[in-house]
């Protein structure tokens, strides 16, 4: 992988660990930019130009990772969950997305598929020791 020029290590780590695909990133940024707007699956599908099933999976994945909040309505709705740290991080991610889109997408595409990573993660049952 070539040296990233435009984004901080935090952004790179966040993308590597939490972002499964480019649509996932775009959905998260959409939710963040429009906060505290509440989105439905149909809204997201229309904004991302993807089928509803994919939008539903993306929103569910983001919810599972705790990046957004899932409201228990029917149909289910989602909105961005603000915390100081995450707000700061997403501001950096947004900047990186605007400036270094090609590098970001390349980084995402060279990751192993998320199902494979989840397979490996399933076998880790002890907690990570806090890195200082």
């Amino acid at each position: 992988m070539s040296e990233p020029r435009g984004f901080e290590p935090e952004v790179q780590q966040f993308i590597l660990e939490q972002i499964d695909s480019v649509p996932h990133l775009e959905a998260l940024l959409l939710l963040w930019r429009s906060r505290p707007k509440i989105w439905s699956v149909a809204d997201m599908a229309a904004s991302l130009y993807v089928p509803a099933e994919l939008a539903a999976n993306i929103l569910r994945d983001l919810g599972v990772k705790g990046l957004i909040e899932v409201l228990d309505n029917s149909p289910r709705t989602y909105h961005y969950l603000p915390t100081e740290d995450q707000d700061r991080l997403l501001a950096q991610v947004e900047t990186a997305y605007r400036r270094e889109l090609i590098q970001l997408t390349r980084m995402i595409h060279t990751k192993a598929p998320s199902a494979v990573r989840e397979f490996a993660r399933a076998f880790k049952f002890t907690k990570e020791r806090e890195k200082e």
Partner: protein
Amino acid sequence: MTFGAAVYILGALTTLICGVLLLRGFLASRKRLLLWSSCCFFGLAISNLLVFVDLILLPQIDLYFWRLLTAAVAMLLLVWGLIWEGEA
């Protein structure tokens, strides 16, 4: 014979552990690959257990076909999952 029995008990335990961990992983992440893999390992656990039953507990019955069938079905489930879910 007892060494063989111990190996298959260990095998049943190992595959059972894998099945449980993968099932937990599926419930947490909802990735279907983990569900198929989990079923595979549970099937392999049954197969290993059947070897133990066949050779030690019930030597008068031949369970060879059932040992093979459970292992074959288990492996086919895994291959199914890998083919459909192992890509982005």
